């Protein structure tokens, strides 16, 4: 077997095993998260109620955490381990260290996941119905935060592992430019280190001691701000693995080559610089933060459109190049020459298309004035189901169709099922996110099991709320079916016999790294500038929040983790239900 025919599993069997293990955790979380998703979609639309409404927040928290923390980040570490090993053509410095951080991440995820799921069993008295946005005054059991800490430490060590591998490679190749995929991994991890400063402080100094009873109170606005310090860049932590697949794998699938390596590097550097000093745009309606700080966050957010637009240009140009290599002609005729029968290509292309729509709704979220129209409505989940729920999730599933044979030496069970799966996701998400966006414009709230208040009718510009509910339920059902098809296809693939010679290489870009300045590879410089920008964006607002509300707040009880917990504001509800304290 020639080197070209070698798969990743042939060349790096131990690393391939670790990537498969990451994907196993990711796809287990995907299946569970999707199950909780369909339960929610059918419940809040009143189509089918499988749970009591009091369990809704357990379902919602599990759906959010399992999909946007466990699924996406385990997929990321698997993909990035593949990318670093492949692009440097080098094993990790110490494979046991690699195994250790993956084990830590898994243990952390299990602790946090089980703590959330225990919320279904009232008798145990452990729960964490705090949603993915786990800031105060919602309080979880200490195990929730402990698992989160272990998980995040695991991701930090993953970054250490990849930086170490790169540094050793650099010693052997002092004059070489960083290979593009490794460059993407390193810049993503710099962004992650900066971003997780906020959540680490929030959890270690406030939320965990508070849930353990070591401190009596916290300042909710402070924990919210620290959460969003992390909560916006985490969006790009989900997105950048998808970008890696779009930049380095999609052009090959299209039959061509990446249009520009330098542009790809610029895009990733821009994400390092601009991802974090924007989090306050999630807090436009928060009292206690001056409007000027919110305006700065909005301006920074609008700058973030630049790397996304650069990506749209570069990726589409690469696809067009591929199509023309395959004989495509004309202004738009080249589109018909693309390999639409390939589920990996089609999934990524449709995900990119949905991302454009998600970008438009994101601009509305980011605009200070128009945000007030949609804030806390179901418009917002409509937006992020297009971005993380499609651009990221669909790209990851599509990327798996291409990666799977490289990792297992087994063919995919069925490419037609794969194609049907990605198209079903596209159609299902179009229905679901459309209904969410429209319902949001009518003022339908998010994060509630009972969006239809009694004695109140939402005013619709066209159609009806009932129609939007059906649309949401049908869309959610299609997404659930699509997830089952994906997981079933992969599971059945394991029954295929192992074959040799399925190795695939990635082509060199049309414009390579030699066309870009070496300063782009200066990781210390970009990390330093990113930290300065974060300091400029956050020092004054955080100072003002602490000055006005105190480091540990001004008092008040935690909101209970269960609806019938100890919270004075619920006394009336308790009386109504005849439940004692």
């Amino acid at each position, binding site marked *: 077997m020639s080197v070209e025919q070698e798969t990743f599993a042939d060349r790096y069997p131990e690393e391939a095993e670790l990537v498969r293990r990451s994907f196993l955790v990711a796809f287990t979380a995907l299946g569970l998260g999707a199950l909780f998703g369909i339960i929610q979609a059918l419940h809040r639309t009143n189509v089918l109620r499988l749970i009591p409404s009091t369990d809704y927040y357990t379902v919602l928290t599990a759906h959010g955490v399992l999909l946007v923390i466990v699924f996406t980040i385990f997929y990321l570490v698997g993909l990035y381990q593949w990318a670093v090993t492949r692009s440097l053509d080098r094993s990790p410095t110490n494979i046991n260290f690699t195994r250790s951080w993956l084990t830590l991440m898994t243990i952390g995820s299990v602790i946090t996941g089980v703590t959330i799921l225990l919320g279904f069993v009232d008798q145990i008295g452990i729960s964490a119905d705090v949603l993915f946005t786990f800031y105060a005054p919602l309080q979880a059991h200490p195990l929730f935060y402990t698992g989160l800490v272990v998980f995040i430490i695991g991701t930090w060590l993953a970054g250490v592992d990849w930086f170490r591998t790169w540094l050793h490679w650099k010693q052997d190749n002092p004059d070489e430019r960083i290979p593009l995929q490794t460059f993407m991994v390193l810049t993503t991890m710099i962004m992650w280190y900066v971003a997780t400063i906020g959540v680490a402080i929030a959890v270690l100094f406030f939320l965990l001691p508070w849930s353990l009873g070591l401190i009596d109170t916290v300042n909710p606005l402070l924990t919210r701000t620290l959460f969003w310090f992390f909560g916006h860049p985490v969006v790009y932590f989900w997105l950048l693995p998808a970008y890696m697949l779009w930049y380095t794998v999609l052009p090959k699938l299209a039959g061509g080559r990446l249009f520009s390596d330098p542009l790809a590097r610029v895009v990733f550097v821009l994400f390092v610089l601009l991802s974090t000093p924007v989090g306050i745009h999630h807090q436009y309606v928060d009292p206690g933060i001056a409007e000027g700080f919110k305006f700065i966050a909005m301006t920074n957010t609008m700058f973030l459109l630049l790397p996304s637009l650069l990506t749209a240009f570069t990726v589409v140009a690469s696809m067009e190049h591929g199509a023309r290599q395959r004989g495509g002609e004309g202004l738009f005729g080249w589109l018909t020459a693309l390999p639409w029968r390939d589920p990996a290509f089609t999934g990524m292309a449709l995900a990119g298309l949905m991302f454009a729509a998600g970008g438009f709704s994101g601009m509305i979220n980011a605009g200070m004035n128009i945000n007030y129209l949609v804030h806390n409505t179901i418009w917002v989940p409509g937006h992020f189901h297009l971005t993380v729920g499609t651009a990221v999730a669909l790209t990851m599933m599509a990327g798996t169709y291409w990666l799977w044979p490289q990792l297992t030496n087994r063919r995919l069970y069925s490419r037609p099922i794969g*194609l049907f799966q990605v198209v079903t996701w596209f159609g299902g998400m*179009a229905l679901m996110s459309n209904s969410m966006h429209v319902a949001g414009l009518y003022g339908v709230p998010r994060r509630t099991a009972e969006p239809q208040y009694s004695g109140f009718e939402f005013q619709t510009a066209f159609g009806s709320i009932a129609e939007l509910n059906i649309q949401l339920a049908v869309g959610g059902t299609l997404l659930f079916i699509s997830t089952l098809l994906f997981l079933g296809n992969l599971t059945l693939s394991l029954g295929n016999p192992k074959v040799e010679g399925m190795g695939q290489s990635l082509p060199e870009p049309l414009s390579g790294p030699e066309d870009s300045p070496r300063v782009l590879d200066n990781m210390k410089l970009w990390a330093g500038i990113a930290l300065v920008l974060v300091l400029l964006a956050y020092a004054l607002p955080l100072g003002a929040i602490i000055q006005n509300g105190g480091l540990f707040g001004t008092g008040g009880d935690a909101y209970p983790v269960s609806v019938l917990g100890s919270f004075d504001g619920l006394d009336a509800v308790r009386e109504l239900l005849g439940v004692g304290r």
Partner: protein
Amino acid sequence: MNDGEPIVKTRGGLLVAWAFLLVFGFELRTALGLFLGLDVPAVPYLGTLAIVLTLFAVLADFQRTSAQRGA
């Protein structure tokens, strides 16, 4: 076309184009409703759109198959 062959073979491009145009047409209904206040009934509109797009897909497939046979 031989008797044993299906009327329409699975073609990635046609499937994606069909799904994309159906979604585009559906979003057009939203735009008409929100921007112009036109309340187009969902089920008849979508049903008609799906039938028309399916007919176009079948015709496109016949045309392509004929062209390939003729070549």
